[in-house]
């Protein structure tokens, strides 16, 4: 399993890639493996304000449904429309084409609460 060093991670198995005041959010390779085949991703409306740790969407796999939790607070800038047609992209490329939302960060101090790759790996026992 792959956990890129340039990403930040949550205990709920999301990743965040920070670029200035913009963050891209997805789920980790571990999470997609545990969920199995993803068949639908429900994402928020653009402009919606989200708070760190709150659910911003849901992800349906064949076996079960899970909430998606925001790693940080902010407002939704963009959602990955491609996932409507090809939700399986989340399984195939969780850190790339399988991204879910882009968010404008409202509180940069929250970043320090996130895990780095090695801490996340320790969390999942890798």
């Amino acid at each position, binding site marked *: 399993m792959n956990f890129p060093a340039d990403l930040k991670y949550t205990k709920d198995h999301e990743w965040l890639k920070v670029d200035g005041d913009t963050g891209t959010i997805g789920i980790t390779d571990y999470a997609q*493996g545990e969920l*199995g*085949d993803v*068949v*639908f991703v429900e994402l928020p409306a653009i402009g919606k304000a989200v708070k760190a740790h709150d659910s911003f969407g*849901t992800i*349906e796999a*064949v*076996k*079960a*449904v899970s909430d998606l939790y925001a790693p940080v607070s902010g407002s939704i800038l963009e959602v990955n429309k491609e996932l409507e047609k090809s939700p*399986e992209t989340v*399984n195939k490329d969780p850190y790339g084409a399988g991204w879910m939302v882009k968010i404008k960060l409202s509180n940069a101090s929250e970043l320090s609460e996130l895990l780095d790759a090695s801490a996340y790996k320790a969390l999942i026992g890798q």
Partner: protein
Amino acid sequence: MNLKRTAFYDIHVACGAKIVPFAGFEMPVQYGGIIEEHKLVRERVGVFDVSHMGEVEVRGKDALAFVQKITVNDAAKLAEGRVQYSAMCYEDGGIVDDLLVYNMGDHYMLVINAANIAKDVEWMEKNIFGDVNLKNRSDDISLLAVQGPKSLATLQKLTNADLSSIQYYHFVRGTLAGVDMTISRTGYTGELGFELYFPSDVATGKKVWDAVFEAGKEFGIGPVGLGARDTLRLEMGFCLYGNDIDQTTHPLEAGLGWITKLDKGEFNGKQVLVDAKSAGMKRKLVGFTLAEKAFPRHGYEITSNGEKVGVVTSGTFSPILDKGIGMGYVPLSYSKPGTAVNVNIRNKEIAATVVPLPFIKK
């Protein structure tokens, strides 16, 4: 509780299976992915390890009378070499388990759900009378289900038994891959398929598994986990004990009237079922599909005009229909195909339509 392993555990791990605890066993839930495995069975051939299932042998002069007493179907009509889908009921009509009954000639074999083995055996022992001998053979028997349109062509390479002559819900005793076994034309997928019962030692298991996979190689054979077993059975509208049927449901409302022979003589639960039938059914297990991309799950409410009218017993994404499908009990007035209902999914009312079962026509 210590989890058990089937004879194929090491093989599953070597195949990259994700192993989960299920009914007291460490079982493969998926290998590559549920959708891929599901389609493999619908289009080609897949192999399920279902050795966790229980087998109980019934012997003795009163074996038939015993089977008649504890099951709802008419075992007197079950000729040697045939299999019958049936159910065991409590006196109140609630279902103890659903099962397969095999007439093996000199005895009956009852195939029961893994999660219910202890409960079922206890119930059977409580119901013993006369000359009846029960033997729980669950740990002695491996069971592989080879299912899919290419299952016959795969297995025929490994046996002299003429598999094409075995009718649905019939079986033969024969040698396959050099192993003496029961070859049964049964399954839980709706596809052409066979279930193979043979001794549970690891060496025999490996011999059969390897031979089946070698024979099926040209058809793209692959292993299939419990995840796809569930989506495959649900597309066919087959009941799963613990979800769609249990001690609080009776066979008639579960759509199992076709196996419930109220005219066969006395059996456990008969009076309650006769009364229920004459009083008229209050509710019925139905199938429904969802109009939008949303998926019903066990326990979600079925609603109409904002009122709860039922509960989803099973639900999933259907890989073949590419939409959400589910089953649940609704009042009779909502059970007609075409009836519009809603399923409450995370506090949203999602439109659903009652449809006839099975969801896919085979």
